[in-house]
């Protein structure tokens, strides 16, 4: 059905678009996805919203060759567990990278991509994926002011 799951999809949209998580003011732990209660501090903690920078490192990865129907269109693709600089780990796809070039420890940054399209004229879901970090252009400015 093309209208299936719309509210569910919409509820996590903002976190998915902007990598929004939770920060516990008591113990300074960051969480993704956001949590209402810090599992360490529970009632003594206080969580506020944090927007992660999108920078992180690959903690683990796999190249997926068989998927559910929604993702068949994109096979093969790389799924990775990315450890954000701010602490939490996030599961996402790694793009703009050849399968042979992914490495544990590789520096990556978040980008905005299509996650999937529902069949039969349903909605398009967007969200974060990660690509290898490339700051070479910044060095370029320093050498060519």
């Amino acid at each position: 059905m093309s209208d299936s799951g719309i509210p569910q999809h919409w509820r996590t949209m903002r976190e998915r678009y902007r990598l929004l998580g939770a920060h516990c003011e008591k113990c300074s732990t960051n969480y993704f996805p956001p949590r209402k209660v810090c599992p360490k501090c529970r009632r003594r903690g206080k969580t506020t919203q944090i927007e992660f920078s999108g920078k992180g490192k690959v903690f683990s990865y796999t190249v997926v060759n068989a998927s559910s129907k929604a993702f068949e269109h994109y096979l093969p693709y790389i799924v990775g567990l990315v450890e954000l600089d701010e602490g939490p780990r996030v599961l996402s796809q790694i793009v703009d990278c050849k399968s042979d070039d992914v490495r544990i420890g590789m520096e990556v940054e978040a980008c905005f991509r299509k996650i999937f399209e529902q069949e039969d004229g349903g909605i398009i879901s967007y969200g974060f994926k990660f690509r290898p970090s490339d700051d070479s252009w910044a060095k370029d400015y320093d050498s060519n002011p």
Partner: protein
Amino acid sequence: MPNNGQFKRREVAIISVGMTEFGELWDKGLKDLAWEAGVKAVEAAGIGGKDIEYIVFGNMSGGLFVGQEHVAALVADFLGLNSTPATRVEAACASGGAAFLQAYMAVASGMYDIVVAGGVEKMTDVGAGQAASILSGAMDHQWEAYFGATFPAVYALMARRYMHEYGLKADTLAKVAVKNHYHGSLNPLAHFRNRITEEDALTSPIVADPLRRYDCCPVSDGAACAILAPLEVARKYTDTPIIIRAVAQASDTLSLLGREDLCTLRATVKAAGRAFEEAKLSRKDIDILEVHDCFTIAELLALEDLGFCKKGEAEKLYSDGQTYVGGELPVNTDGGLKAGGHAVGATGIKQIVEVTKQLRGEAKNGRQVDGAEVGLAHNVGGTGATAVVTILSRR
């Protein structure tokens, strides 16, 4: 825990077991599978329908696979036990184990005497893509499956990390698959009865790198049943009651996101700790294990997390055949999930059926572990959010 974990209870035994073949069983629906396993167990115990006081059935997703919820009520009805209370338990792939714990608690508490613990799953009425989709409900739907993770993919993430931290070689994973297929070839009820070589495994197509086809368990139809009774009356029904020494369950984060250590299933560690404490036994006492090898890597992690070897050292157990029948630590003598088959809701009970047969000396075709006295069954849900560890003994 109140009373330091020592709670008032009766001792409980398994008085009979029954299971169907596991596989692609086109002519058997959900009801037929549950009925077959149930009837086998009931007849083996020599009891009548009116003796059964409570039914607990594990089933992950009757609704999504065959459009049927209210599965336990359906099973009770089809078995002709219309007024017997029946409850379905769901804990993804640990539904069977979790159902077993509930059944055990019902008898141990004294509330009921004869209780049926079963599990059933009918998975092959849908196509492979849809089955993958349904199974992805065992992980975090919103933050794992939503982004394209499949079940093999999340275990592959664990495998890749394990290889990075402990230097695991791909051919060790192949050895696990070869062993389980060998055991499966000796088990007439196994989904796969073909033997394979390490080369077959290492050259099979990649599903989610580094896991290949032979690293992944199949999607199976099947059902299994165990009937429980208080130990004090068990001998009325069988000469070989199998004593339940402990059933322990524990949880962990639903997704890999919150796990500090990707290579340890904390739920298994916790459940195993409690089970051995409750049973007052040690790892050395275990003669046969049924562990949750949904993927070959999972079998290695299981042996470590259950405490049979140190973290990172499971590889050593596969270099000299000690995990084969006849070896020092036989693991998955019925073919495990890989070759025995994985009918999700039924697997936890199927493992208990195999341990029971082994402890009774009833395993055939060269699968019998000589003089097995104590066995362990280990059932996991998802990537380890639920784990159930059961210890059974002959005496």
